C-alpha cells in the first residue's frame, strides 16, 4: 500500500511538474499577447516615471522631451488615466496633458497651456498620430487592445540563451500597419522587439527594448527605441525614475491638477 501511495504522489507531482513546465506551450498566441499587454501597459496598480525622449532625425540632430508621467489603472486591460507634466523643451515647460484611456472607445484628452490659462479638449480619434513629434504613436504609448488583431505563432526563437515567442499580428480592421511581428520573452512576457509593416508589406518601423530593470519588484523596460526605417528618424525613451503602487489618488486626474500641477508628484 505504501508503495502505491508513493507512486500516486510521484505521479501527481509529475503531472503538476509537466503542467508547469509546459504551460507556456499550451498558451495560445492570443493569451501570450494579452499577457504581454498586461505586463507592459498595466504593470502595478499605478506608476510614476520621469521620462526622457530623444528625437533624432536622419542627420543626427537631436530634440529632447522630458516629462513626468503618472498612470493609474482602473482595471487590468481596461480603463486607465494618464497625467503628464512637461519639463522640457523650454517652450512647452509647465504644460500638462491628461488622457483618460478607454479600450472600447476614443480617449478623452485635455491639454493645459499655462501662458493662456487655457484647458483645451483635444480631438483624439487618430490613435496613430505621433506623440509629441516622436516615432511613438499614442497607441504605442498607451497600448493596442490584443483583440484588435488576429495573432499567429510564427516560431520560438533563442536569442542570447533566452526563448522568445515570435508572433505575427494582422489587424482585423484598417490600421496604420498591415502586419506586425512581435518578439515576447517567454520568461517574463515583455516585448523586446517589434516590426511594423506597411501596405506594400515593407518594414517601416521597429521597436526595441534596450534595457530591462527590476523596479520595485516589477521587471520594467527602462530604455526603448522606435526607429522609422523609411525616414531615418528615431526616438529613444529612457524611464529615469520608475515607482509603482504609490496609491496615486483619483483627483490628480482632474482639471484641478491639470491647472495646478501636483507638487508631491513632481519633485525632482
Amino acid at each position, binding site marked *: 500500500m505504501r508503495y502505491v501511495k508513493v507512486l500516486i504522489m510521484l505521479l501527481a507531482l509529475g503531472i503538476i511538474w509537466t503542467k508547469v513546465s509546459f504551460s507556456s506551450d499550451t498558451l495560445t498566441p492570443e493569451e501570450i499577447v494579452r499577457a504581454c499587454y498586461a505586463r507592459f501597459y498595466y504593470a502595478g496598480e499605478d506608476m510614476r516615471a520621469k521620462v526622457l525622449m530623444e528625437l533624432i532625425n536622419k542627420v543626427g540632430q537631436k530634440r529632447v522631451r522630458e516629462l513626468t508621467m503618472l498612470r493609474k489603472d482602473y482595471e487590468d486591460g481596461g480603463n486607465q488615466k494618464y497625467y503628464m507634466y512637461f519639463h522640457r523643451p523650454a517652450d512647452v515647460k509647465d504644460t500638462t496633458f491628461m488622457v483618460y484611456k478607454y479600450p472600447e472607445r476614443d480617449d478623452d484628452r485635455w491639454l493645459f497651456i499655462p*501662458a493662456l490659462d487655457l484647458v483645451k*479638449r483635444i480631438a483624439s480619434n*487618430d490613435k496613430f*498620430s505621433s506623440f509629441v513629434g516622436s516615432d511613438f504613436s499614442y497607441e504605442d504609448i498607451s497600448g493596442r487592445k490584443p483583440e484588435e488583431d488576429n495573432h499567429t505563432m510564427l516560431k520560438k526563437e533563442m536569442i542570447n540563451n533566452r526563448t522568445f515567442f515570435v508572433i505575427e499580428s494582422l489587424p482585423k480592421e484598417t490600421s496604420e500597419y498591415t502586419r506586425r511581428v512581435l518578439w515576447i520573452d517567454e520568461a517574463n512576457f515583455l516585448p523586446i522587439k517589434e516590426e511594423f509593416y506597411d501596405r506594400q508589406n515593407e518594414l517601416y518601423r521597429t521597436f526595441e527594448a534596450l534595457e530591462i530593470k527590476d523596479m520595485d519588484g516589477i521587471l520594467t523596460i527602462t530604455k526603448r527605441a522606435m526607429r522609422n526605417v523609411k525616414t531615418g528618424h528615431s526616438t529613444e525613451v529612457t524611464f529615469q525614475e520608475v515607482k509603482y503602487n504609490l496609491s496615486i489618488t483619483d483627483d490628480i486626474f482632474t482639471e484641478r491638477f491639470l491647472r495646478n500641477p501636483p507638487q508631491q508628484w513632481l519633485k525632482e
Partner: protein
Amino acid sequence: MMKGTLVIAVVISSVYALSAQAAELPQWHGFVEQAYAGRISQDRLTKHQDYNMLEQRVQLKTRYAIPGENLFSRWNSVATYKGDFLLDEYFDTTGSYEVREINLAFSPTRTIDIKAGRQVLTWGTGDYLFINDLFPKDYISFYIGRNDEYLKKPSDALRISLYPKTVNIDFVLIPYFTPNTMPEGDRLSFFDSFQRGITGRASERNAVKPAWQTENMQYALRLYRTFGSTEGALYYYRGFDPSPRSYLDEANRQLFYERLDAYGASVRGSFAGGIGNAEIGYYRSRQDAEGNNRLIENSILKWLIGYEKDLGNDLKVGAQYLFEQKLDYAAYKEALLSSDYFWDEYRHLLTQRITKLYKNQTVMVGLFNFWSPSDKDGYARASCAYDITDQWKLTFGINIPWGEDGITDFGMMKKNKNAFVRVRYSF
C-alpha cells in the same frame, strides 16, 4: 535695433550669471524674440505707413515650489513670476517692462486652492470667440501678429477654487478694472464714430475707466463638473464691459465701460467622432436695462456651437457658429438720433480652423477664418511655424481683415492687413 540687441544681451548674460552663482535659486526660463510686421498695403492714417510691428522682447519666468518645513510648503505653495522686457520700436520707446504674472498659489485645505496676484484668467469653450470669458484681452497684439499668449492680458485678482464632491467652484475677485486693449489709431486704424469713419492718429477719443473703489470690484464665478466624458459649466460675471462701447460725454469725445452682468452656461464633450461644444451667455447692461438710452450699449444675447475633428495624419479641422442678438432693439432704434450710427439686431459669425503638422510635428501650418454673412466682413489669419531646434522657432503669418463697411468689427480693420515674421530663441 542695435541698442535693443545690446540691452537684451546684457539682461540675458546677467540672468545667466546670477543663476550660475546660486544653484539653489529657482530656475529661470523664457525667450528672446525679434518680430516685424509689414503692412500689405500702406496706411497713411497711422504713425508708420509701411509696418505695424517692430520689436524685441525678452521674457523671463520662474515657477518656484516653496521648500522646507513651513506653512507655505505644507500648503504646497508655488510662486510664479513672468515678466516681459519690450523694446517697441514702433513707438521709439526706450523699452518697457510688463509683469505678466506674479502670484502665489497654495492649498490651505484638501479642497481649496487659492491663487493671489497678477494672473492670466481663461474659461469658456470658444476658439478665439469669448462669451463667458470677460477677462481682459489685447486685440492689438492679436491683429499685428504677436504670439497667441499676448491675446490674453493678466488681471490682478484673487482666485478661490473649491472642490466639494458634487461640483467644482471657481470664484474670482478682481479689485481693479483692466480693460481690453483695442485699436486706438496710432498703430491700427479703426472706426471712430467721432471722426465719422476709419481713423488713425487723428482719433482723439478716450475711454474713462471706472475708479478704484469697492462698488467697482468685479466678480466672476464658474461652477463646473464632468458627466462622464462631457464637461458642463455655469458662469456668472459682475463687472464692466471690457471694451468701451458706451458714450460718457460726446462733446468731449469720452467713452466709458458700462456696467455689465453676464449669465452663461456651456457644455463640451465627445461628439460624432470629434469634440463638440456649445455655450450661451446673456449680457445684461445694468445702466441701460430697458435699452432706451442711445449712449449706452444694450443687453445682448450670445450663443455659439463648435466642433473639432482630428482627420488623422496630424490634420485637424474645426468650425464654429456664433449668434449675437442686441436685445430691446425696438427701444434702441426709437432712441437713436438721425445722425447716429446704428448696428444691426443680429450678427452671425462663422469660423473655420485647419491645422496641419509636418516633419515630425516641427512644422505647423494653420489657417483660421472669421466670416460674418450678416456684417459682410471677415478676418483670415494664416501662419506657418517651424521649430528649427528645441530652442529656435521661426514663425511667418498674415493677418487679413476685410469687409464691405467700415463700421463692422472686421471691416473697420481692413486697412491693417499685414504679414509678420517672428524669430524666437527659448531657454
